[in-house]
């Protein structure tokens, strides 16, 4: 965190100055480790074993926050008799289909719930289309709440004794995640591990809270979602969710990457985490809402959210009679993630490509495949500040140097469009804590530089003009689109605040809404993103609020605006006990004011404002009305934090340790080596996998490589390698290796190393350092190679791209690549040039006996 989010880290140091203990778990020693109370290096790719070990410690030693667990989590829920755990099936859960490599979720449900809805078929349970729906990144569609769990009332045992209750299932599931097992899998000594367990347990309870902060490297594994799930289990057991100083904090790496997930430029989502509809026979709005909404909680009002979105998209054309243009939405039939898109480019299906502030030629996994895709396009539009690698690969990319491509042979037409910077446009970023902040235009962009707002608006305007006379049915969604934005100034720049107002939403009279609870399902309201409703309340640009922090409370509610409803801590009803009183004075955040009959406190209560703590809903209540006064997790279909996930994840209701796609070790916990439903792309000659432990040839790639960031650069470098100050601070690509590995492989500090994976080869300067300590894993010495991934051949600070080495084995829920643990070899000296580079990779593959099937086995 000190390395990649240094200014946010000041608050960690504030906490430390007030007595907090700081534990840093990371394969490398960084600026964070330097000031931590404990640095715990572990093997990249082993976090579930580590966190699961802590869960086991908490359960075995009864360190959990019992009152919180009983009242606010699903620990008491009793599971269906049909459920079988990985303990029963040696590493897979019940419902696994080894042919299709998908899970049928039916057996994961709570006892007492009907999964099959009475009046329609739910997407998640469709046998026929289960593989396709599962493939479509569906597990990700829960960014603002859990999945639907069916109808009925779950059976519960508040004593937590029932052998099939979640609590007991959890206890059995993690019983073999012992300190000995953690030492064996992670390479962390038992003493060091127990120290961490004790620190966390001691610092949790009514008076204290522990926070987990992770950089999104946790997501970059074939079990990425389950990493975070393990932390969620632990934090829920310890009562650290919805309370001040608690939580699981994702430290995201781009100014508005949260915003671009909330208002998604993602294939599988519509704004506000409404899933993109899947293709079904006779699917209409009612069937979609029936399938995707939840019976209880605020997802129960999903029809209002999507109808209001359709009104924002298609305005007057969207009416009750035409299902509010629901049919205008394109349908999914599987995954269309960026990695599938690259394959579609290579296969000639996808012919045109826009890149807007992203540099996949060096920034995405298996960078070579990205370039091969771009080389097969008809046209490419690159919008950026400088001539990044994704704009120039056709004349100076690595394949030109190796002779694999010739510029004259490449038919791709390339448009480079200069982009405007944040100082040259109005707009809002959503930061990593869900807070929108407005940046004001300081100057107009010079020359032909323009904002993306300008580009998209005018592109849409021109296309609509060109097709204005069309009578074709396929053009109706385009021509009926509400696309009238006021423009201003010499450049005809669209008014960003007008777009914000559309996102916020309007009532039937065109007045700004102030809360998503005002949204209607009859077409009388419009709203571009329901979770952002209220960001333009009273016609005021709420994200632009800047009351100085020193002039308001520690919550600082008048700086910017956080979704939903300016709540700064999600699910903060859990900061009070079931009776509505703070668990302790020290950790008070919101509480029930019985005199006034409403929730109050330092933060905006994340709950039904006037619902008393003892409220019990009638049996037939639905949606928010079905939430009891002690159901803090209002977006969850049962109002509770999920220790166990009965629906919504593609790879299991509980996290289990699986080895990475490529691993020098055998899974010590289960017969199942890897995540059995990890998402593999179709085989490609430039995307081969290394053999894992036990298979012949595994020793050809004996080291674990992991990629990461440095303070002085930003992601793939498009915004940092062209800045002289930053280029001077970090002038070129390097790798970090231990003195032991350097001795073993004749690597010289300051010299060159060549790093080879089954995909590609790169060269890097060598930094020999104790920061990358060797570990003892399963009785063997493991060396890890650290690779900052900021580089490419352009700009002032140059070097090979670490992403050349990566493969395309993805997390099945999110389709994010496994960037954080892969198999490599390292050798002294610079990499070969020209045709010899590809020859070296080929030689490695042959020596390891790698074929198209290697690593694709279950």
């Amino acid at each position, binding site marked *: 965190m000190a390395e990649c989010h240094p200014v946010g880290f000041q608050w960690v140091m504030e906490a430390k100055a007030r007595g907090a203990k700081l534990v840093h778990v990371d394969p490398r020693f960084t600026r964070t480790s330097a000031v931590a109370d404990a640095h715990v290096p572990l093997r990249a790719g082993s976090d579930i074993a580590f966190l699961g070990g802590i869960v086991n410690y908490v359960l075995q030693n009864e360190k959990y926050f019992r009152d919180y667990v009983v009242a606010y989590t699903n620990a008491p829920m009793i599971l269906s008799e049909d459920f079988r755990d990985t303990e029963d099936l040696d590493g897979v859960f019940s419902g696994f289909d080894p042919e299709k490599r998908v899970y049928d979720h039916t057996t994961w449900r709570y006892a007492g719930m009907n999964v099959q809805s009475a009046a329609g078929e739910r997407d998640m349970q469709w046998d026929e289309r289960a593989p396709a729906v599962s493939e479509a990144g569906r597990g990700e569609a829960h960014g603002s709440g859990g999945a639907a769990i069916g109808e009925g009332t779950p059976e519960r045992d508040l004593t937590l004794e029932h052998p099939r209750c979640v609590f007991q299932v959890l206890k059995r599931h993690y019983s073999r995640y012992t300190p000995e097992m953690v030492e064996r899998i992670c390479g962390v000594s038992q003493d060091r591990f127990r120290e961490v367990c004790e620190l966390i347990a001691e610092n949790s309870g009514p008076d204290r809270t522990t926070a987990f902060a992770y950089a999104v490297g946790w997501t970059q594994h074939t079990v990425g979602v389950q990493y975070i799930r393990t932390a969620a289990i632990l934090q829920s057991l310890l009562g650290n969710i919805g309370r001040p100083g608690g939580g699981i904090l994702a430290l995201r790496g781009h100014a508005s990457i*949260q915003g671009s997930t909330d208002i998604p430029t993602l294939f599988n989502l519509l704004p506000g985490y409404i899933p993109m509809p899947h293709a079904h026979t006779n699917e209409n709005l009612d069937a979609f809402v029936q399938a995707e909404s939840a019976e209880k909680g605020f997802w129960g009002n999903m029809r209002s959210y999507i109808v209001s979105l359709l009104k924002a998209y298609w305005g007057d054309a969207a009416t009750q009679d035409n299902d509010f243009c629901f049919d205008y939405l394109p349908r999914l039939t599987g995954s269309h993630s*960026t990695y599938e898109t690259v394959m579609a480019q290579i296969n000639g299906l*996808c012919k*045109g490509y*826009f890149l*807007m502030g992203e540099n996949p030629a060096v920034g995405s996994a298996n960078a070579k495949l990205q370039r091969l895709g771009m080389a097969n396009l008809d046209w490419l539009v690159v919008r950026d500040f400088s001539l990044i690698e994704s704009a120039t690969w056709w004349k100076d990319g690595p394949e030109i140097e190796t002779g694999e491509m010739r510029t004259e042979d490449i038919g791709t037409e390339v448009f480079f469009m200069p982009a405007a910077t944040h100082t040259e446009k109005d707009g809002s970023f959503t930061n990593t804590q869900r807070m929108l902040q407005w940046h004001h235009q300081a100057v107009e962009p010079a020359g032909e530089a323009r*904002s993306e707002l300008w580009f998209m608006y005018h592109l849409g305007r021109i296309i609509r003009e060109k097709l204005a006379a069309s009578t074709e049915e396929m053009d109706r969604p385009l021509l009926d*689109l509400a696309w009238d934005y006021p423009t201003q100034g010499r450049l005809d720049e669209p008014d960003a605040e007008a777009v914000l107002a559309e996102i916020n939403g309007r009532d039937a009279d065109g007045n700004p809404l102030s809360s998503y609870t005002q949204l209607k399902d009859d077409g009388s309201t419009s709203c571009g993103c329901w979770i952002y409703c209220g960001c333009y309340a009273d016609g005021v640009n709420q994200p632009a609020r800047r009351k100085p922090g020193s002039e308001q409370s520690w919550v600082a509610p008048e700086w910017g605006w956080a979704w939903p409803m300016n709540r700064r801590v999600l699910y903060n009803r859990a900061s009070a006990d079931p009776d509505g009183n703070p668990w302790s004075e020290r950790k008070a955040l919101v509480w029930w004011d019985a005199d006034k009959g409403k929730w109050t406190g330092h933060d905006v209560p994340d709950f039904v404002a006037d619902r008393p703590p003892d409220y019990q809903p009638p049996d037939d209540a639905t949606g928010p009305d079905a939430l009891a006064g002690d159901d803090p997790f209002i977006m969850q279909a049962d109002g509770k934090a999920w220790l166990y996930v009965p629906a919504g994840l593609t790879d299991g209701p509980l996290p289990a340790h699986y080895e990475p796609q490529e691993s020098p070790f055998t899974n010590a916990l289960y017969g199942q080596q890897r995540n059995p439903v990890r998402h593999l792309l179709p085989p490609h000659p430039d995307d081969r996998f290394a053999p894992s432990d036990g298979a012949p040839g595994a020793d050809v790639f004996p080291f674990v490589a992991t990629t990461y960031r440095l303070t002085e650069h930003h992601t793939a470098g498009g915004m940092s390698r062209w800045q002289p100050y930053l280029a001077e601070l970090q002038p070129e690509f390097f790798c970090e290796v231990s003195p032991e590995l350097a001795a073993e492989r004749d690597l010289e500090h300051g010299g060159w190393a060549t790093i080879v994976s089954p995909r590609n080869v790169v060269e890097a300067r060598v930094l020999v350092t104790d920061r990358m300590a060797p570990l003892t894993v399963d009785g063997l010495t493991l060396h890890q190679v650290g690779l900052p991934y900021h580089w490419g051949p352009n700009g002032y600070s140059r070097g090979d791209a670490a992403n050349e080495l990566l493969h395309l084995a993805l997390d099945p829920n999110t389709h994010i690549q496994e960037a954080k643990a892969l198999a490599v070899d390292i050798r002294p000296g610079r990499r070969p040039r020209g045709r010899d580079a590809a020859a070296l990779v080929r030689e490695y593959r042959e020596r390891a006996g790698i074929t198209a099937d290697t690593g694709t086995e279950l």
Partner: protein
Amino acid sequence: MGVRTWIGSWPVYRQFTGDDPLGRGAAAKSAGSERIKARVSTADKVVKSVCPYCAVGCGQDVYVQDGKVTQIEGDPDSPVSRGRLCPKGSASLQLTTGSAREYRVLYRRPHGTEWEPLDLDTAMDMIADRVIEARRQGWQQEEDGVRVRRTLGLASLGGATLDNEENYLIKKLFTALGAVQIENQARI
């Protein structure tokens, strides 16, 4: 300059006689440094902004003089950052005004070996034509007998560095075009 003034201008004298015994403030100032003005002090306006790098969201003050950005500093009012910026945020001035920025549209024709100039309006018109054509070429009304009403002919990548309002227009327009391969860094 009298002797007293001369001695009084000597930093060491002021360090021992004044209220800056460590010589890190007023005592260290010379007549020359007194005359130096911060470039922000003459700015025409200060515009409130947010750092464009990571997702912490540090506040920035953007100083503008004669229609140009002259300096970018941390905003002390921000409860997120309290005036601090990291090395990247501190380099925002180079990001926004540095010589590495391009201000002209560039065009590489199929099989071409060099960039060519192209004016913005022409480029926009050409891109619109290409979108229309690629959309048609990749159009699917049905797949496996089920209505999908989409195109796989074009794709887009990017958004995490852009504004919410920009992402909104990207998703809205591409969805109306029937394009589904719309992605950003959040996938990566």
